[in-house]
């Protein structure tokens, strides 16, 4: 289901202009992330989709139909909504929470709860959590229940308002992975709100950067926004590591992988004046053996220098560069999907690939329109902000 904002404006009763002439399209089956500083109108924009907020100007269309023409309650039952802290009903069990929308839509209690049980599985929660109350779950589990609840009636559209901001960074990353996976499997049209540019870039097919006052600053693919911010506001907002982060969107392509001297744990390595990668029986990297170091008898973990981050073959250049930079040997270890060592890369190889990449800059004149180097179809967006 395609979501389209057409010149949408929201001015609250107190005169605050929360959203100003927002126009953009979220194509069917894709995820758009609204990102921007606090108070820039992200939540307001999101809520105009399910009529929790009524626009004071413009219109929001779902598959071309103005949402204003739908009965609000009916409309909302067809749109999943997930918010920060999950907004779970504390007085209902996990299953009761998930079954809410089906029950509202008139399903029988039994089938609603059966569906809820399935969804527990979909979001990766064990079935025995079903009878718990939200207060008995961890933050991450609550968020998963929130997602399951939003999915319960199998709505084509999902709205998610900072759903993961209350959980700690590690759990958060796990939840993001699961959301990406879910999205791949279910193909919903998702609007996601966050104020964290990293999250936006990680999740979105497209990112809409809003500025305070509710104006769209830029709408484009994450690569676009990171690599070609339209103005200083966006540049500042995406942060000073944007060059490095932008590598996330460069595929490794023909990255040259070198062989590396290895030494198996348990073997008796000869002395050597080069760095050797210690590997175990499954060829998984365990650490580095420094040049000139001597090993008493068989090679054991205690003889090693801790390794750097690992680079999984086929992922973006960001990981490759970090692997090389973090390695004590300056050699980034490349592993396959099973974690077995494939070889090593140097930072220089990575730079080679970066340089070989086609210069993706097409917007040579100072238009503020977003560029077209999208991962998916060309987003329809109008950013009316002139270059700062």
């Amino acid at each position, binding site marked *: 289901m395609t979501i389209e904002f057409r010149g949408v404006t929201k001015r609250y009763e107190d005169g605050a202009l929360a959203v100003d002439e927002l126009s953009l399209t979220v194509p069917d089956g894709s995820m758009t992330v609204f990102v921007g500083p606090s108070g820039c109108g992200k939540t307001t924009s999101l809520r105009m989709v*399910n009529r*929790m907020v009524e626009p004071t100007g413009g219109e929001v269309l779902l598959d071309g139909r103005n949402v204003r023409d739908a009965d*609000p*309650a*009916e*409309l*909302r*039952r067809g*749109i999943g*909504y997930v*918010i*920060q*802290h*999950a*907004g*779970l*009903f*504390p*007085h*209902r*069990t996990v299953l009761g929470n998930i079954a*809410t*929308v089906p029950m*509202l*839509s008139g399903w029988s209690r039994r089938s609603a709860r059966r569906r809820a049980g399935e969804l527990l599985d979909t979001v990766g929660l064990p079935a025995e959590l079903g009878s*718990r*109350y*939200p*207060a*008995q*779950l*961890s933050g991450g589990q609550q968020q998963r229940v*929130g997602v399951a*609840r939003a999915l319960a009636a199998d709505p084509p559209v999902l*709205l998610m308002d900072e759903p993961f901001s209350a959980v700690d960074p590690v759990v958060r990353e796990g939840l993001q992975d699961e959301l990406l996976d879910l999205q791949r499997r279910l193909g919903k049209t998702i609007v996601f709100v966050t104020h964290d540019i990293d999250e936006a870039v990680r999740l979105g097919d497209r990112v809409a950067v809003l500025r305070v006052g509710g104006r769209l600053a830029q709408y484009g693919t994450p690569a676009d926004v990171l690599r070609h911010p339209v103005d200083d506001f966006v540049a500042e907002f995406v942060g000073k590591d944007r060059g490095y982060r932008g590598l996330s969107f460069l595929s490794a392509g023909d990255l040259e992988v070198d062989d590396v001297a290895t030494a198996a744990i348990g073997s008796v390595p000869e002395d050597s004046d080069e760095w050797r990668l210690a590997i175990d029986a499954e060829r998984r990297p365990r650490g580095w053996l420094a040049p000139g170091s001597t090993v008493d008898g068989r090679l054991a973990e205690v003889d090693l220098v801790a390794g750097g981050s690992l680079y999984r073959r086929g992922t973006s250049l960001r990981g490759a560069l970090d692997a090389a930079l973090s390695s004590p040997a300056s050699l980034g270890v490349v592993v396959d999907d099973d974690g077995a060592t494939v070889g090593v890369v140097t930072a220089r190889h990575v730079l080679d690939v970066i340089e070989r990449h086609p210069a993706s800059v097409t917007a040579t004149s100072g238009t503020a329109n977003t560029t077209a180097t999208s991962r998916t179809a060309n987003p329809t967006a109008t950013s009316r902000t002139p270059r700062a």
Partner: protein
Amino acid sequence: MSITDELATYLGSANTRAQLWAALAEHCYLALLPILLGVVLAVGAGWLGRTWPPVRGTLAVAANLVYTIPSLALFVVIPGVIGTTILDSVNVVIALSLYTAALLVRPMLDALDAVPQAVTASATAMGYRPARRFFGVELPLAVPVLAAGVRVAAVSNISLVSVGALIGVGGLGRLFTDGFQREYYAPIVVGVVLTLLLALVVDLLLVLLRRVLTPWQRPASPNRPVAAGEAA
């Protein structure tokens, strides 16, 4: 005569015991029915305050005003207003219902306000219409706070019913007037003790009822404590 002897003599009469039971039964009826009615009224006020916020101020003021009227006066004036007979126990029931409601309106409104915004918002977003949201989500979540208010109201009611004895409808209160008239400790002591016991039992029942109504507040699993939202 020592107080124990006095009590023994007093309770020795079968007629006395029969009267005590009747008084106790009447006391229960006079104190507990108003709690039920008062809760219904307060819920109604809460609903009104939620759906139409401008009346909230008025509701709060009205509740406070009701509370300023002496119970005795209310008992006596009610027949004049609604046309019941002066000895009708309905007068006491109505008056105490009003007090209960007055006592509960504030906590009711506060409790409804304390329902996390995220929860109401997600209910709305899931397609709840206002009435269903109120009864299905907001009201249940207000129960813990409301329950604390009901406990106070119940205990106050049980103590207040006695005043009705001054108009001849007072449950255990008649023991006080009787003891007073005859300068007789026994009925007063028995009356106070029975009132306290009744209050204790009712309070206990309310605590149990609250536990039954709020299963989500029970720490069912050891891995996470549940925030206790109980007011004193």
